[in-house]
């Protein structure tokens, strides 16, 4: 019964809880974008998918806040101003327990408007995640070169 009660709470969770995604900072140079996701609490990078290219990047984190008692928004969106040469993107996160089997999970979907290549790593401050993004051009290999491909 207790477990059922918890599930009910999760299903009907109000969205009016603390937000975790503080800001998204984007800068670009020579077609390379650095996207820094700033969080309001320390986060732990666990994994991401796909490994290095795609249109939707799933990022799995864990919140390591000092105060674990605070309720958190179970869902949040964030959009940033468009940056030249960087495909527009939206970040959506979910904190529902089913997204990852850890305490205080934080699962992010970063949805780009077109496929990109990227690298992901934890920020040096422990409260941010860094993505380096390039426009995906491999799928548009020059026709004259296709004969060289195996």
């Amino acid at each position, binding site marked *: 019964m207790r477990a059922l009660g918890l599930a009910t709470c999760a299903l009907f969770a*109000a969205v009016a809880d603390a937000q975790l995604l503080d800001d998204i900072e984007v800068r670009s140079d020579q077609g390379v974008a650095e996207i820094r996701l700033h969080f309001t609490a320390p986060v732990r990078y666990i994994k991401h998918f796909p490994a290095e290219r795609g249109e939707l990047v799933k990022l799995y984190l864990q919140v390591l806040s000092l*105060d674990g008692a605070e309720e958190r928004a179970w869902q949040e*969106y964030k959009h940033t101003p468009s940056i030249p040469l960087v495909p527009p993107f939206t970040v959506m996160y979910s904190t529902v327990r089913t997204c990852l089997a850890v305490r205080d999970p934080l699962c992010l979907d970063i949805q780009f408007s077109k496929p990109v290549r990227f690298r992901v790593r934890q920020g040096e401050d422990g409260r941010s995640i860094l993505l380096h993004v390039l426009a995906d051009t491999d799928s548009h290999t020059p026709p004259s070169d296709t004969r060289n491909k195996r």
Partner: protein
Amino acid sequence: MPLQKFVPFLVVLIALMSPSTALAQTGTHAPTTATAGTRHFAVTLLSSFEPIPDALLPTNLKTHRVYRTQSEIFGKRIYFVRLGFFATAAEATAMRDTLAARYPGAFMTEVTAEEFGATTFVQIRNGKPASQSSTPPAPRADLYVVTLVVSETDTPLPVGPWPAKLKNKRIYRRDIMQNGAPRYSLQLGFFASAAEAETARKLLLASYPQAGVRQISQQERDESGRTVVVLPAETAAPTPKPAKPTLPLTSVRGDVESQASNLLEQSRAALTRGDNNSAIQLLTKLLQLPPNRHSQDAQELIGLAHERNGEIAKAKREYALCLELYPDWPGAERVRQRLAELETAPKTQALKAPKKKEVSVSTAYGGFSQYYYRGNSRVDSTETPIVGPPQPLPTLTSLDQSALISNLDLTGRFRSGDYDNRVVIRDTYALNFLDNTDNENRLYAAYAEVRNKLYDYSGRLGRQPGNSAGVLGRFDGITLGYSFLPKWRINVVAGEPADFNPISSDRQFWGTSLDLGTFAERWNGNAYYINQTIDGIIDRQAVGAELRYFDPRSSLLSLVDYDVSYGVLNIALLQGTYQVGSKTSLNLLIDHRLAPVMQTSNALINEINTSISSFLQQGMTEEQLRAQAEARTPTSDLIMIGATHNFNPTWQLGGDIKRYNISGTPANGTPPATPLAAQQGTGDVYVYTLQGIATALLTKRDVTVLSLSYINSDSYDGESISINNRTLFREKWNLDLSLVYYQQQDNLGTDLTRLTPIVRIGYRWRDRITFELEAGMEKGEVTSSGLTEDSTLNFYMIGYRWDF
């Protein structure tokens, strides 16, 4: 302190933002580079995190030169294939447009004089030149080198002593990916023959026992100029003197860095007090040192010092030199702006010093959303007596949620010269339609922030997120920070918690922290002290520290928080990740904590009376309250290890094992509060999870996540399986399907099953507005001796989100 008290401060703070901010014009951008000499433009066709294979190079672009190049951008090595050169940006842009169908990611680039001069033909795999440019190919040169040292983890540094006869040779860095793993090496060149290179190798065997000789391509030789590693002059030994110990080059380099750091710090201080001439002298000394990590900053600052001194011609020369030397430096854009301002300013005005910065950018972004949530439930119960047939009990139905949630997230950013200021407002309003349910507004953030990049200070005032430097969560207050040395920053914070809990006591805190690093390019951290009171007595008095380590393959974060007043360890946390090869990563978490952290306000857990002062007035002593707080604060221990492996670009498999234990608490609650029975601890709970993620499983643009978990504990066992699929279709639509099944059996004979399907659909309209609809259901069954309950929960959501 109510937030309204901050409003005047917010107004004042915004008004005090840099003077030029008030003149900010939305969308003002500096013109592009205007360096000395002829400008050259190219079209960047391809860019990659890894070297671009020949197969991807175009073979039929006859009119211009196709060449490879690479740059360090945001700390990442990026490889480019460009098509050049063009005399104007317009010509390059026209070519880019022509090639847009074949190279949709192509963009126009202004190239440096160095790149223009160093570029040679790219050879395709069959050895034929890629283009028929009129520029003759570079003459064949010496193509033998000595590979001094190779590392898989880090860029090696030269070590001494260095033979005098090799002092005119070039040492350069070569970073490549081999079998999916990075390899960093130091190369020494160039030699006309393998025998000559072998002679050099033997001379260096004492310092580089693994050195080897290899032949290189013309391209590697051409590109080596970009990664030259400079030896400090002192390390070149004019004649071999084996008897005299020689200082390792790394130590000499360390001295240079330290000296440069001190000079930069002194020059910044001089600029701060307006002593531009002293700043110029100090920066000149710094720039006379061997190249170091502060050279770029110094080159920019000497330009700034001249500019402030009214020496505009010198300032322009220094800025232009900065751009020539460091075109890919992250600060290059700022220097371009400074130079552009000087280039475009009228000469009479330029001679006046100092001038105000006019280039500024103001942006406002965020989102507004409104979602309607509705949920209802139905429970059918059947009682099964020991004797007799099952007896159905009355069905329970209820409307559990009916609310319109409006959410505003607004950020205004004002960048001007050295200032980068923000105003942030985040607010959520819940309009509840259920009887006896109040509407609720929650202001999550309302703060103004000032950051000055030149003098490296910052301030933030208003309601803001905490969770750093010992501040537990959101608070109303002020944060100030100043970097008094290049890697040392002091912060002070003061305010009161704003965590929406029902505590009616007055709580205030102040604290200070010291941010350290980054040292040795990998280590940073902080240390803090915080003191919080509640109704005049100590609530929390803690010291803590964070230590962090990062390198390209691994990261480590440790955190300790210790309450000196209670003498208890609040948090001891260690987490790390490690990348094995290019496809596998490992992660670890060890987390011991009091949950919540120890505070005297924990004495109010499960109390109707939410005021510490009223307990004190009723006769409880501070000691009794503290004892009550300690008794009601459970301890949590967690250890978790996990691994993830990418089998191929479409499949990833991960798994982890977790063990946690949460201690029990005694019965508590003072009448009239409902006494809470003693809570048993969880004992050791083990959770085993396997998760597979795949892309393009059902459609070309989908991602599917499959999870299996098994939970084992002293009191119950549970299993769960879940599948989630997100599909993007027809450009603007997305569909999320989710199914979760969970079952659990406990020691009392109670069985529980739960099945939860959820569907969610989204449509993006005109790029800025997204409509969403979600429907879910949870079907549950609980069976125990004598009672069976079937429950159905339904959940709906519909709304929109406007991103601006």
